[in-house]
C-alpha cells in the first residue's frame, strides 16, 4: 500500500513540471512567514515596556528602529508603530504572494493531470469503456482532481505551517527549560502512535465514502441518460427511492466517518491537553521548590499551551490528506491503465491508403466467451464486403477489429500485407471512416458534427456530404439549418435523421475504408435506396456494410453470413441463394411476404 502511495505522490509531483523547486521554496517561505508574523507581537510588547513602563534596556529591535534611551515618548511610539505597520504589511503581503503562487502551481499541476488523464482516456479501448461506468470516470476528472488541487495549494501550506509551529514551540520550550521539556517529550511517542493509527484508519473511512460517492455519481449519471425510459415507464417514484437510498447511505457513512474520526482524535487531543496541564503542574512545583521564576513559568506555560494548536490541526490534516491520497490513488490507477489496444514497439513506417485487408484465421475472446471463430477474409480497393447474420452473431465486433477497438486473440489482420498490430493506430484509423449502429452525435452544430473528422471542411463539402446521406432536405428545413445545435444523443431528431447525420459524418471523412454498421436501420426504405445509389458512386474505397436487409447487400462483391462468430456462408448473391441456407431463408421471408401481400 505504501509503495502504491509513493507512486501516486510521485505522479503528482511529476506533473508539477519545473515548478517543484518553487513549490518547496514556497513551503520554506511558509515556515519563515510563521516567524515573521510573530514580530509585530514582540514589537508591541517592547512598545508597552519602553513607552508605557519606562523600560530602558535596548534590544536589537530598538536598534533597528533607531530608538535610543531618553528619546521623546511620542517619537518612540511613532517609530514602534511604523515598525509594526511595515512588518505587518510586509508579512501579509508576502503571505499573499506565497498563497497566490501556490494556487498557481496547484492549478497548473491539476491542469496537467487533467490533460494527462484526458489523453489517457483517449487511448483506452472499447473493452475498458464497456466495463467502466462513465460516472466513475467523470468523478475522477472532477472531484478527485479538485482534492489534489486543495492538497497543493492549502493542505501542504497547513502542514508546513503547523509542523514548523510545533517544532518552533518545542525549540522555545527547550530554550527556556531543558529538563522539563525532556519530561514532556515522553508524550511525543503517544502522539506519534495515535497519529499513525488515525493515518491508517482514516484511509479505510475515506475509501468507503469515496466508493459510495462513486456509486451515487454513477447512478445519477445513468439516471440522467435514461430519462426517456424513466418517463416512458412512469418510474419517477422508483428512481427517487433509489436516489434516496444511495444518498441516505452516503449521508450515514459520512456521519459515521465523522464519529469514527472523533473516536481517534479525541484521545489525541486529550493527551495534548494532559501534556500541557502536566507541564504547568510540574513547572509550578519547580517554582515552589525555587528552581524556576514565576516570570519563566508564565512564558513556559504560554508555549506549552501553544503546542495544542498544531496538534489539533495536524489530526485534521492527517484525515484530509488521506482523503486526497485515496483520490490520488484512483487517479494514478486510471493513469496507469494499460490500453489493451496500443502501438507495438516496432511500427511499420510505411502507411498510406488501405489497398487490401486480410483476416487470417482471426479469433476473439471477450470475458471468456468466444465471440469470433477462425475468420478468414480478403478484400481490396473498390470492393464491397457485406456482413449479415442473426442478432448477436458478432457482426459489430468483427468490424470493431478493423478499427482496432479490440485486437484479435488469435490470428491476425493484415493491412496491405502488414500485420495491423504493427501499424500506427492513429495512421490506421485515419484511413477508416465508420458509421456505427448506435448513433452518438456531439452537442454541437450539425455542421460541426458532419465535419467532425476535419473541422476546416468547407460548407460546400458539408452540404454535399449531407446530400449523399440524404440528410440535406431535412437539415435545411430546420430553423437554423446546418447551424442547429443538436444534443448528445442527437435527441430532437428522429432515429432515421440521426443515422443520416452519422452517415454524412462518415462519408465526409477522407478515408480509404468505409464501414457502415447497419446505418440505415431506422431510415425508410425509399431513402435507403437513394442512399445506396449514392454509395455505389464511391469506387475508390473499400466498403464494408453490415445490414439486415437483402436490398442493402445484394450488390456486394462478397457477402458473408456470420452465425455464432463463424462464417457459415459466403459468396455473391446468386451463389448464396443457390446454397439454400440462411441467406436464402432471409430472402424467402422478405420475398414471400411481399408476394403474398401484393397478390393477397
Amino acid at each position, binding site marked *: 500500500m505504501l509503495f502504491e502511495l509513493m507512486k501516486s505522490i510521485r505522479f503528482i509531483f511529476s506533473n508539477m513540471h519545473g515548478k517543484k523547486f518553487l513549490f518547496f521554496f514556497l513551503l520554506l517561505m511558509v515556515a519563515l512567514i510563521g516567524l515573521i508574523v510573530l514580530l509585530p507581537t514582540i514589537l508591541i510588547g517592547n512598545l*508597552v515596556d519602553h513607552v*508605557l513602563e519606562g523600560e530602558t534596556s535596548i534590544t536589537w529591535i530598538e536598534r533597528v528602529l533607531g530608538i535610543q534611551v531618553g528619546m521623546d515618548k511620542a517619537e518612540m511610539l511613532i517609530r*514602534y508603530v511604523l515598525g509594526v505597520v511595515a512588518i*505587518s504589511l510586509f508579512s501579509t503581503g508576502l503571505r499573499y504572494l506565497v498563497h*497566490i503562487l501556490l*494556487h498557481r502551481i496547484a492549478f497548473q499541476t491539476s*491542469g496537467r493531470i487533467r*490533460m494527462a488523464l484526458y489523453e489517457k482516456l483517449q487511448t483506452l479501448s*472499447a473493452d475498458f*469503456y464497456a466495463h467502466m461506468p462513465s460516472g466513475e*470516470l*467523470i468523478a475522477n476528472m*472532477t472531484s478527485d482532481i479538485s482534492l489534489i488541487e486543495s492538497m497543493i495549494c492549502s493542505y501542504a501550506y497547513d502542514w508546513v505551517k503547523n509542523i514548523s509551529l510545533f517544532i518552533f514551540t518545542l525549540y522555545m520550550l527547550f530554550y527556556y527549560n531543558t529538563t522539563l521539556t525532556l519530561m514532556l517529550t515522553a508524550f511525543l511517542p503517544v502522539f506519534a502512535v495515535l497519529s499513525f493509527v488515525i493515518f491508517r484508519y482514516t484511509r479505510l473511512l475515506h475509501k468507503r465514502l469515496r466508493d459510495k460517492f462513486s456509486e451515487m455519481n454513477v447512478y*445519477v*449519471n445513468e439516471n*440522467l441518460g435514461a430519462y*426517456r425510459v424513466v*418517463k*416512458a415507464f*412512469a418510474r*419517477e417514484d422508483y*428512481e427517487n427511492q433509489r436516489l434516496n437510498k444511495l*444518498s441516505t447511505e452516503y*449521508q450515514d457513512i459520512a*456521519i459515521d466517518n*465523522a464519529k469514527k474520526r*472523533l473516536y481517534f482524535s479525541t484521545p489525541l487531543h486529550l493527551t495534548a491537553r494532559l501534556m500541557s*496541564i502536566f507541564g504547568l503542574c510540574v513547572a*509550578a512545583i519547580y*517554582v*515552589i521548590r525555587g528552581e524556576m521564576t*514565576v516570570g519563566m513559568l508564565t512564558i513556559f506555560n504560554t508555549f506549552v499551551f501553544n503546542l495544542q494548536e498544531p496538534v489539533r490541526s495536524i489530526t485534521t490534516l492527517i484525515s484530509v490528506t488521506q482523503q486526497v491520497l485515496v483520490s490520488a490513488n484512483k487517479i494514478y490507477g486510471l493513469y496507469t491503465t494499460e490500453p489493451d489496444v496500443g502501438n507495438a514497439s516496432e511500427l511499420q513506417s510505411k502507411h498510406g491508403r488501405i489497398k487490401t485487408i486480410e483476416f487470417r484465421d482471426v479469433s476473439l475472446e471477450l*470475458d471468456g466467451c468466444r465471440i469470433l471463430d477462425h475468420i478468414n477474409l480478403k478484400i481490396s480497393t473498390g470492393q464491397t464486403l457485406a456482413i*449479415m447474420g442473426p*442478432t448477436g452473431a458478432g457482426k459489430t*465486433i468483427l468490424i470493431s477489429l478493423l*478499427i482496432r477497438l479490440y485486437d484479435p486473440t488469435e490470428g491476425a489482420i493484415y493491412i496491405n500485407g502488414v500485420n495491423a498490430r504493427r501499424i500506427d493506430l*492513429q495512421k490506421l*484509423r485515419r484511413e477508416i*471512416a465508420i458509421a456505427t449502429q448506435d448513433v452518438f452525435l456531439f*452537442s*454541437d452544430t450539425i455542421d460541426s458534427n458532419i465535419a467532425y473528422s476535419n473541422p476546416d471542411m468547407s460548407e460546400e463539402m458539408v452540404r454535399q456530404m449531407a446530400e449523399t446521406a440524404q440528410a440535406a432536405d*431535412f437539415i435545411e428545413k430546420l*430553423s437554423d439549418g446546418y447551424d442547429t445545435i443538436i*444534443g*448528445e444523443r442527437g435527441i430532437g*431528431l*428522429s432515429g432515421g*435523421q440521426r443515422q443520416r447525420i452519422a452517415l454524412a459524418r462518415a462519408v465526409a471523412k477522407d478515408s480509404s475504408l468505409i464501414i457502415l454498421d447497419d446505418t440505415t436501420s431506422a*431510415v*425508410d*426504405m425509399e*431513402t435507403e435506396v437513394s442512399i445506396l445509389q449514392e454509395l455505389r458512386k464511391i469506387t475508390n474505397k473499400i466498403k464494408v456494410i453490415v445490414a439486415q*436487409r437483402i436490398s442493402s447487400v*445484394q450488390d456486394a462483391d462478397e457477402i458473408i453470413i456470420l452465425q455464432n462468430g463463424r462464417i457459415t456462408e459466403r459468396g455473391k448473391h446468386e451463389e448464396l441463394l443457390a446454397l439454400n441456407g440462411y441467406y436464402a*431463408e432471409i430472402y424467402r421471408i*422478405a420475398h414471400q411476404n*411481399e408476394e403474398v*401481400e*401484393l397478390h393477397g
Partner: protein
Amino acid sequence: MAKRNTYGVDETLETPFNIKNLMRCKPYILHNIKALIGALIFSILATIFGLLGPTYTQIIIDDLIPNQNVRAVVMIAVLYFITSCLAEFCTFFQTIMTSKAGHRIIHEIRVDVFGHIQKLSFNYFDSRPRGKILIRVVNYVNNVADFLSNGLVNTVVQALSIIFILIFMLMLSPKLTLCVMAGLPLVLLYLVLIKSRQRRAWTNWSAKNSNATAYVSESINGMQITQAFNREKINQGIYQTLIQKLNKAHMKAVSINLLMPVLIENIMRFVVCFLYLMAVLFFTQEQYETGVIIAMASYANRFWGPIQSMANIYNSLINTGSYLERIFDTLDEKVDIKDEPDAKDLPPITGRVDYENVTFAYEEGINILENLNLHVEPGQSIALVGPTGAGKSTIVNILCRFYDLQGGRILLDGHDIRHVTLHSLRSQLGIMLQDSFIFTGTIRDNIRYGKLDATDEEIITAAKTVCAHDFIMNTENGYDTEVNEKGSTLSSGQRQLICFARTILANPRILILDEATSSIDTETEKLVQEGIANLLKGRTSFIIAHRLSTIANCDQILYIANKGIQEQGTHEELLTKKGLYYQLYTAQAEETANV
C-alpha cells in the same frame, strides 16, 4: 426544440444569486434545527470550559505558589484536566451534531433537486449536456454542506463572542472601544467595493466548471467515435482551452478571496497601534492606566479574531453562493408537463384513442403536425408509415404526453390526457423507444424495470415472447449477467430485445412499438412477430416500422407526411387506392423482387 446549451456556452441563470436566496435554505436548516442548536450549545459550552483554563493558571500563580501548596497544585491540575475533558467532550458532540446537520441538509437538498429533475420534461434534458446536470446534483450539493452547518454555527458563536468582548471593552473604556472599532468602516467599505466583483468571479468560475465537466462527460460517452475519427488531438486542444479558462477564472476568484485575511490582519494590527497612539498622544487628559491600555489591546485582538473568522465565513458564503444559485436555478426550472391541480387518475382503459384537431410543434412556428384527427377503437392495431422525420414518433410521443400540444386534444377512453395524472396515464401505456437504454445491473433487473414486482417466471416468459431467452441463456451468467449503459458486451439487436421484453413485461393497455425491431435480423424479427401476435390480440397498438411486411396485417395503416395523415385504411384499401402507400409499397416490393 428549445435552444440548446453546449460545453462552449456558459449557462445563464434565471435568478442570479443574492443573499435573499440564502433564505431559501431556511426549510432545510429548520428541519435540522435541533442538531444545529445542539451543536451551538456544545460549541458555547466548549468555549466556556476553555476559558476556565487561564483561571486555573491564575489560581496556581497567584495563590498556590506563594503558599507553597504542592498538593493543591496537583488538585488544581486534576481539576483543570477534568474541565479539559469536559471541553473536549463538548467539542466531540458539537462536531458530531454539525456533521449530522450538514449531511442531512445536503441529503434533503439532493433528494429535492433530483426529485425535481425527474419531473422535468424531455425539453429540459434535450437542451443541455448531461454533465452540466450531473455536476449540480452531486458535486455542487456536496460542496454546500460545510457552510450550511459549520458555517452557520460558527457565525453565531463568533457573533456572540464579538458581542461579549464588545461589552467588556465598553465597560473598560468607551472611547478606547471606538478606537478598536475604527477599523470596521474600512472592512465594510471593502465589502461594498468587492462584493459584486467577488460574486461575479465565483459565478464565472462555476460556469466554467460546468463547461469543462460537460465536455469531459461527453468526451467519455463519445470516445469510440472520437477514436474512430482521429479527433484526439483536436479534442485535447478544446479541453485544454476549457481547462485554461477554468483555471483562470478560479485564480481570479481565489485571488479576491485571499485579499480578505490580508486586509483584516493588517487592520487588526493597525487598530492596536492606533489604540496606543490615541491613548498616549491624544487622550492625555484621561490619563489611562497602563493596565487598561494593555487590557484594551488584548481585547482588540480578541475582538478582531472573530471578525477574521466571520470574514472567512463570508468568503465561503460567496463561494457556496455560486453553488447554491445553480442548485436553486435547477429547483426553479419550470415543470412544463405536470399534473393539473385537479387531475384525476385515469381509470383502467379499454384502449379507445381519439386525436382531435391536434397541432404540435417542437419549435414555435414550425408545426410538425397540423389539425390531425384520428379515431382508434379498442383493440385495433395502427401502423404508422411514411418518410423519416415526418412525425411518426411525434404522434406516439404526444400520446404519452412527453410533450404538450399547441392545439387540439387527445382522448383516451374519452378522458383528455391533459386532465389525468401523468403516472396513471403512462403506466397504462407501454412505449418501446427508439434508443435501447440498458441500465447498469443484471439482464434480469433490466427486464424487471417494466414491472418491478415481476416474478422470475414472468421475466423469462417476457424474454421468450420476444425471442431473447436463448441468447440470454448463452451469456456468461444467463439472466444474472451484469450489463451496463454502454453494454457493449451486448449487440444492438440484443439490447433492443431486452428493452422489448421490458415493455412486454409491463403488460400495458396500449402498446407502442417505435421501430422496435430495427436492429434485429429478419429471421429473428419474424419469430418476434409470431411471439407477440397473441399479445397484440384485443390490445390497442401503435406500430412504427419501415419494413412494410411487418405491418400489413394491421387494422389501420396511416401514411404520415406533410404535417398529418395523408392516407388511412387497411393494407388492401390503400393498395387499391394506388396513392402514396401504394407507391411506397411497390417500390419496396420491387426492391426485393429485383433481387
